[in-house]
């Protein structure tokens, strides 16, 4: 079985968030981690590898520095890493990103593609399903459990209060939730091996069947109007009153602030 796992290097929310003047994230200046949902997707692939035997290829698109998440994935047990990086691909929205990644995946053999549900920096949850659309594959999103059954996958798709059990024939694409599993740690020897291994680097020229008009900032229908770090609200005001007094107090405050 051949599995492609798509991962993204995202800002570590423990560190500060920094922006470029155009409103996009200044990724080079921030501490980074492997996106948690993607890490769960990778762990799911590695567990399938442990159980059924599989060749796991990890693919990312980003700055040359995104090579780090591929090394991390290899140190956890992935077999190959592919970095898609090119200046012309910069500033991509979900459409341009999924077009790029699909263009890269067209060069590969695969039975299963696993992506994270969404990235903690964009929170769109669009890229996974869009890749499936570009490649004409069935997609099962929000996976909380994955099993292999012959040439099919059986996946539990999570809802708030229940789950659906869905079966899809491979090849297909699954988007993983961070609740799917507890990702393993790297091993020290795995890290040393990962830095001895060659990571494949692809640019624009290596993408298959994609049009320039769908790539990079120019090919992105979505434009970021404004972005800012989370503004911290004050602690607020806490009052303890009985119901009638509370209503009167609130009405007074609303009037004072011209809410009503």
């Amino acid at each position, binding site marked *: 079985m051949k599995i492609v796992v798509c991962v993204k290097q995202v800002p570590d929310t423990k560190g500060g968030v920094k922006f470029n003047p155009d409103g996009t994230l200044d990724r080079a200046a921030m501490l980074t981690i492997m996106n948690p949902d993607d890490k769960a997707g990778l762990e799911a692939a590695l567990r399938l590898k442990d159980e059924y035997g599989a060749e796991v290829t990890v693919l990312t698109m980003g700055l040359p520095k995104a090579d780090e998440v591929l090394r991390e994935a290899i140190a956890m047990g992935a077999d190959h890493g592919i970095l898609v990086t090119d200046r012309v691909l910069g500033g991509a929205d979900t459409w341009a990103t999924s077009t790029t990644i699909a263009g890269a995946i067209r060069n590969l053999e695969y039975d299963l593609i696993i992506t994270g549900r969404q990235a903690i920096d964009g929170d769109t949850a669009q890229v996974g399903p869009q890749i499936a659309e570009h490649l004409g594959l069935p997609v099962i999103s929000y996976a909380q459990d994955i099993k292999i059954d012959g040439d099919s996958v059986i996946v539990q798709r999570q809802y708030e209060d229940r789950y659906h059990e869905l079966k899809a024939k491979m090849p297909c694409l699954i988007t993983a939730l961070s609740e799917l599993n507890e990702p393993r740690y*790297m091993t020290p020897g*795995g890290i040393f091996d990962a830095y001895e291994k060659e990571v494949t680097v692809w640019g624009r020229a290596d993408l298959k069947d994609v049009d320039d008009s769908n790539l990079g900032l120019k090919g992105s229908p979505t434009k970021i109007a404004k972005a800012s770090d989370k503004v911290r609200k004050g602690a607020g005001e806490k009052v303890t009153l009985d119901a009638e007094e509370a209503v009167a107090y609130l009405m007074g405050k609303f009037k004072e602030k011209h809410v009503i």
Partner: protein
Amino acid sequence: MDFSLDKKHEMARSLFREFAENEAKPLAQEVDETEEFPMETVKKMQKYGFMGIPVPKEYGGQGCDPLTYVMCVEELSKVCATTGVVVSAHTSLCIDPILTYGTEEQKQKYVKPLASGEKIGAFALTEPGAGTDAQGAQTKAVLDGDEWILNGSKCFITNGKVADVYIVIAITSVTEDKRGRKKKNFSAFIVDKGAPGFSFGTKEKKMGIRGSSTYELIFEDCRIPKDNLLGPEGKGFPIAMHTLDGGRIGIAAQALGIAEGALERAVEYTKERKQFGRSIAQQQNTQFKLADMATRVEAAQMLVYKAAMAKATQKVYSVEAAKAKLFAAETAMAVTTEVVQLFGGYGYIREYDVERMMRDAKITEIYEGTSEVQRMVISGALLK
């Protein structure tokens, strides 16, 4: 000269830090309080290869270098010094001598399960009457056909009861020099747990590293196979001394970790703690103390990393190891004492980690060669 770590070492450090924070830190207080060996954490460390970091892959290890191993002990000790010394004693004092002096058969038989973490290792040199004066040891080994028979006892043995494999130093002959002075000739042995005649004495109750399993080992006509002699007969003393050179780098890393852990807590605490209307971090007294500690800690780190690099590239690294251990241990003691002072009354309370850190720090000035021994080694090389 470049003082920055390369990417793989940076990544290894982030791995050790994440593991220590998630796995060892939540148990540190309990391990200290109950004096229970952190077996749960050790099992996890086995799974992720932490028990054989600097061991070649052909012998079941991770194939990393001494620096990576040192960073592991450092990061573990930042949150739990007990966990740090488990790895240090196992790796430096048990695996390393077998790897250095063992036959191919011994490496296959012992290093493989030790490096994979399936087995835990220990090292036994110290005796009740022989600490710094290791030559004063009394434990004897006599060859009887195909077996060595060991008699005597060893004390203060780290990983004492949890270990499966022990390196034991014992007298195998006494010779006279030209002037008629008697000289004990030591040899090193590999002893399996469960060897007939091998038992455990008292468990030591300690000031610090209380979860570490510290026991007395007793050998009463203990029989081990002839093939378990490690290195040439009569070379046990140099083997023990060379092993301790490596061990000191591990302990130096433990001390460094303790100092770093205490300093980190001091930075957090002094920013939060308010007295006289402002945080104590805003008082110059605190600022100067933090600055001095940070400077000292970084100097210790440089010496420890330098010693680790020396172990990777040099045959002899006694002086580098001694300097690293001396300075890191005294830094750990000084820094933890100062941090307890900055915490004031809270520093003296067990609920706060710094009290434990101060107790843990003391042992680093004592075991695997006291600070006085390190000074002897350093000055000995200077005055040669």
